[in-house]
């Protein structure tokens, strides 16, 4: 018993309160940006300000943005410690901006740092901001959420499934795509609309008509040298159809001079088999009519078949455009190579050749996509 008590005392003295931190000491990092300027890494952090709700006096900004510089990423983060008394708490980080300047060979160092930090969750989103200074994007406030970082991450996640022209990628997936053979990660590109002065001003939030906010601009990928590949709207649709990221996306096609839109209910498209140099893209899309501006009567079953064919053409067209962009930019952001690597490894000499430059352009595609329109859409009951 005596030994046991001594043991307990020693355990308490040696290990007690290890890692103890009070809530009030924490500087909650909601978003972060990594860039490189003049050979130094620059870290920008968006830290949540703990403001007493309903506190009297001047309303404070819900966030603070702090920057640090250093020869390595770790140095840059440590340098921020000179500017704040808070202990950095990054577990709840919503997203990280990886600037264009670090997407080339520097990315390795950045990812090494991120993967090493055990306290970092693996579920934050990776984004980029090619048109803005990352710090400006971090400084912008949001009217929809006191924590602007939550707003951005929600925005990206929601628009991916609902609209189809965006794409969300978590750090875990990003790391996998970065390390995998035959695939290059795609980033959602966020952009600050309007002026920074207005966007970072708390007063702006009081107005209903705001011109200064963060939006998702498009998708981008970076080639090996860090050059930006802008993935346009059509290509984004194609990318999301191919990677099965669409839940309730809408596809608009033309019927003569008019247009109609269908909303996808279920979409499953993928690479089916590799024969020679040809990959069959096979899939099935189920949809319903969402908007109809054409002249033929919808009650005719043939019309629905026709609309399905037109939609099929549109989707195939999207996919074709996406593949063309990948081939032209010599960057396989779709993951065609990755599919071949996993299913037909022997097709390509992965160890000695570069897929993007030597493999991707040799592949041809066949399309076998079925579109079925399940419903003509719903009318409001009494009409």
């Amino acid at each position, binding site marked *: 018993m005596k030994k046991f008590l001594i043991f307990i005392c020693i355990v*308490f003295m040696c*290990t*007690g*309160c*290890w*890692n*103890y*931190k*009070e*809530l*009030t000491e*924490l500087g*909650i990092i*909601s978003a972060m940006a990594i860039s490189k300027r003049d050979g130094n890494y620059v870290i920008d952090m968006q830290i*949540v300000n*703990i*403001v*007493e*709700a309903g506190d009297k006096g001047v309303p404070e900004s819900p966030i603070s943005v702090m920057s640090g510089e250093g020869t390595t990423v770790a140095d840059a983060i440590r340098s921020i410690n000179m500017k704040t008394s808070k202990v950095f*708490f990054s*577990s*709840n980080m*919503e997203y990280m901006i990886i600037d264009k300047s670090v997407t080339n060979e520097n990315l390795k160092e950045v990812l090494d740092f991120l993967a090493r930090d055990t*306290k970092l*969750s693996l579920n934050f989103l990776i984004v980029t901001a090619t048109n803005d200074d990352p710090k400006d994007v971090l400084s912008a406030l949001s009217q929809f959420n006191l*924590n602007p970082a*939550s707003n951005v991450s929600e925005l990206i996640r929601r628009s991916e499934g609902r609209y189809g022209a965006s794409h969300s990628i978590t750090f875990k997936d990003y790391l996998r795509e970065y390390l995998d053979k035959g695939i290059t990660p795609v980033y959602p590109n966020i952009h600050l609309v309007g002026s920074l002065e207005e966007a970072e001003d708390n007063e702006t939030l009081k107005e209903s008509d705001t011109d200064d906010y963060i939006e998702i601009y498009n998708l981008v990928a970076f080639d090996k040298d860090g050059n930006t590949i802008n993935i346009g709207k059509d290509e984004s649709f194609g990318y999301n159809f191919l990677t099965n990221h669409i839940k309730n996306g809408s596809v608009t096609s033309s019927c003569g001079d008019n247009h109609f839109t269908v909303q996808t209910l279920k979409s499953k498209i993928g690479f089916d088999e590799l024969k020679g140099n040809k990959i069959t893209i096979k899939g099935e899309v189920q949809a319903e009519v969402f908007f109809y501006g054409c002249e033929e009567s919808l009650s005719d079953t043939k019309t629905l078949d026709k609309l399905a064919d037109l939609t099929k053409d549109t989707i195939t067209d999207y996919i074709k455009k996406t593949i063309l962009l990948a081939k032209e930019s010599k960057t396989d952001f779709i993951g065609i190579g990755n599919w071949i690597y996993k299913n037909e490894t022997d097709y390509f000499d992965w160890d000695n050749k570069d897929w993007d430059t030597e493999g991707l352009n040799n592949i041809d595609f066949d399309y076998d996509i079925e579109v079925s329109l399940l419903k003509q859409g719903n009318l409001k009951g009494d009409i």
Partner: protein
Amino acid sequence: MNTKEIIKYLEDLKKKMPDLIIKDINVGVFKHVYIITNEAVSSGDKVNDFILKHFSGLSIVGSTPLKNLKRDVEDNIPSINFKNVSDRDSLLELLFSGFTIIIYKNEVIAYETRAELDRGVTEPTGEPVIRGPKDSFTENYNKNIGLIRKRIKSEHLCLEELTIGKQTKNKVGIMYMENICEEDIVNQMKDYLGKINIDGVMDVNNFKSFINKENHTLFPTLLYTEKPDDTCRFLLDGRIAVTMENSPSVLIAPTFFVDFFHSSEDYYHKPFFSSFIRLIRFIAYFLAIITPALFIAIITYDQEVLPVSLLINFTVQRSQVPFPAIVEAFILMFTFELLYEGDARTPSTRGTSLSILGALILGDAAVQAGLISPIMVIVVAISAISNLVFIYYDIQGSIRFWRYVLMILSALFGMVGFMCGFILLIINLCTIKTFGKPYLIPLAPFILKDQSNALLRRDLTKINKRPSYLAKKNVVKEVNVK
């Protein structure tokens, strides 16, 4: 026994005991009947009506001389409770139990003239009920046994009596159903009680220190109830009820962990509702123990598990508090314990002021003063309210103890400490044996057929067997519903 010696002894005793009455009645030449009674415990009316009236009538002249006291008393005084007294100790015991002692020519007889010194049968105060019988045990031994007997009108309901307490000499009764209860358990109980050798026992609750002592635990292994219907339910399961004079509660043994989550009221509701309530009690039990500890562990070590909005919220609330979370929690817990104890000992007429003061101090002023944060008030309140769900007071001791253990471990080691503490709790629960049976039965070891009335309750027609871990004979209850 020598009359003169006894009388001399009693007269000496009277000097220190003015409530002792010694009456000398002349029933012939040099023939004295001594009537000795204690006016505090015996009824004056009974003594007057039956004893004094009879002996006063035996005047010196004109009546048949008193020859044999025993026959005379049996022939002339109506009573069913006469006792021959052979030694001084039993004389004194009977005297102080409310008997009147009659002494004539070295012959001593005790005649019961006990006064009603008890309150009547009242509503249970410790275990309030909404549905079901509202009578409760009193301090009167016979009344208590009566309350049980009138519910179980069976020749199998046995009562074994023994006397405990060197000075107090309390009558203790062990009740059980001989056709259901295992003999082993009865023998063990007799063994436990037989070994008790102390000055006095005031209540059956004193037996806690003597029964199941081998377990090092704060979890209650004996159940005390003041409700006769509860007691009968336990007796029919094959358990023992121990009752004692001057004790308004009855000890039930053996009892297991799940029994503390049952209430007699459960059986007066529909099975779905009572299962729901039992589930609530189980959840409340663990909430009462873990809530403060879990909160401390999360906000001081493992903030990662909180969603960011909640984290910001907690941080804002904690920003005004100058103490570490554990100190804050202890301040509030201590205040609550004070209130809780204060409230329990306050007469109901003054209780209101206490609750107003408590609500103000805990709810508002302490938060305003920046001593504690509102979220901590909520956490401690959840824990405290969960604590109050339990009807059996004894289980609260275990809740309080483990709550503090877990709080300290959480404050020192975070989630790891919390988990270790919780594992210790489970280990402790698993090691307890009550009357040779595992305390967690029928949960661990898991007995499927006894689940019909463990965590949840099935319809009464479906619970047609007594708990298999208790009753070995007469296992099937007679339930015939067509």
